[in-house]
């Protein structure tokens, strides 16, 4: 293996990194095509490094070395066990049947390829108390809860939504070559064709609930889960809680309901604040930790506050344009 080969490998490595970036200009695309055509060895070097870079083996090794850093917070709901010792490639392929790991990789490459002209970008926002249905050009729909902001980016090879604040229910049109992902800042959700709800309660706490199909959630630091329909996940910083009993066609909030299940009052209040015309505040943050269970009609905040007050022997009043909940 001479030094010329060596050079080619370096060039190939640089191209693999460049071609997996979200934005590629036309000039770079043309340069890559010229490089590939120039010498057959370029294709071979690029292919071999692609194989290494995309391999499950590297994924597992990186995951292993990442876990030594975060070993203390082993997630409870993890079912991403492809990398446990003793799991040979057989299991790796079995998991690929779901196609999600590959979809994620493909998505990254996919975003690369779209020339800027063909990229559709749009941002949508709802005020407190209003909901909105956004229909995307691919046939997917997004129902936005109140006080929600999203940014949509669709290219011929990728579909991506950034949920910047609030909550949204996604009904995704299945496409074979084009994935769909939702980024909540902390966690990212990748799907094939499916329906799911993502709730960004605050910067730390993100809730994903799946109503149809299968989604993959990546919370960073190698923490990944696959959620089938009927299940959900609440990621709050280092803590992870798996949710069950996700039923129906779509989440209750789309019909003005919220189903609380041992849910902290703070979460209920945060949700109420999306629909209530007046903000709800707690006189004492400790009240936020009380748990409530039940079906609440979030478009009627006064009734919800009455119910919370009755459950925990609290009171509430209107003060300065706000609802204040106190002992």
């Amino acid at each position: 293996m001479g030094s010329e080969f060596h050079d080619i490998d370096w060039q190939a490595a640089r191209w693999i990194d460049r071609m997996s970036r979200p934005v590629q200009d036309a000039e770079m695309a043309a340069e890559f095509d010229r490089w590939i055509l120039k010498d057959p060895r370029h294709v071979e070097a690029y292919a071999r490094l692609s194989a290494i870079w995309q391999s499950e083996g590297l994924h597992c090794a990186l995951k292993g070395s990442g876990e030594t850093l975060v070993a203390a917070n082993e997630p409870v709901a993890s079912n991403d066990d492809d990398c446990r010792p003793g799991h040979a490639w057989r299991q790796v392929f079995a998991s690929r049947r779901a196609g999600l790991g590959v979809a994620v990789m493909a998505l990254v490459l996919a975003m690369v390829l779209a020339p800027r002209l063909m990229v559709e970008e749009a941002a949508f926002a709802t005020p407190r108390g209003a909901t909105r249905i956004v229909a995307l050009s691919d046939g997917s729909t997004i129902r936005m809860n109140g006080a929600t902001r999203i940014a949509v980016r669709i290219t011929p090879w990728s579909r991506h939504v950034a949920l910047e604040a609030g909550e949204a229910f996604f009904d995704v049109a299945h496409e074979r070559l084009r994935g769909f992902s939702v980024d909540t800042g902390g966690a990212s959700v990748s799907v094939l064709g499916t329906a799911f709800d993502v709730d960004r309660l605050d910067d730390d706490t993100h809730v994903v609930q799946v109503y149809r199909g299968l989604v993959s959630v990546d919370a960073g630091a190698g923490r990944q889960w696959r959620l089938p329909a009927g299940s959900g996940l609440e990621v709050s910083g280092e803590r992870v809680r798996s949710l069950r009993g996700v039923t129906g066609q779509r989440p209750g909030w789309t019909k003005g309901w919220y189903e609380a299940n041992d849910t902290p009052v703070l979460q209920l209040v945060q949700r109420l604040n999306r629909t209530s015309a007046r903000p709800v505040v707690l006189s004492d943050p400790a009240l936020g930790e009380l748990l409530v269970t039940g079906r609440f009609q979030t478009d009627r905040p006064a009734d919800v506050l009455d119910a919370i007050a009755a459950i925990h022997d609290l009171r509430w009043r209107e003060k300065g344009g706000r609802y204040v909940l106190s002992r």
Partner: protein
Amino acid sequence: MLSSIRDLEATPGTVPREDGWDAVQTAVQRYVRSRSGRHDIADDIAQETVARLVELGRMQQIGSIFALAFRIADNLLTDMHRRERRLSDEVDDEWQSEEPSMDRVLDSRRAVDVFNRCLRRMPPLRREVLIRRRLNQESCRSIGEDLAISAKAVEKHITRGMIDLRKALELAGVDLVGHD
């Protein structure tokens, strides 16, 4: 061999044989051989890839034809592995393909051990960059911001990291099949 893939609209006869497509088809064949080590399927995949490219090219402008071609070929390879796995589950637990598969080599316990050793030996910063880029799919810019280094430096670490991994496999004698 690929005929059972769904959504297959174009049949081999309908692919236009213009000069440009021949070059693409040849490159994809080469790519598949090196990428997977599977010589038996390279022609099929290259043909199918070009058919899809032609279809896509009719509907929209394509940035890098080769980057898209290689990605389509990757997807087809994945589909094929998946189908072969299903088949082998039905037929025989100890089933082996007659052709070696690069993916199988790279997913093996031995390759993972080589990667692990290589990652342990590299500077912690480079390892961190690789984890963030490959595992967490972070952009070079955000990695650079978090680690207080320039995006250029991030790029260098990734490139170096890939070469390190490639060399480690070679030194360990893990055969990267597909050399012509």
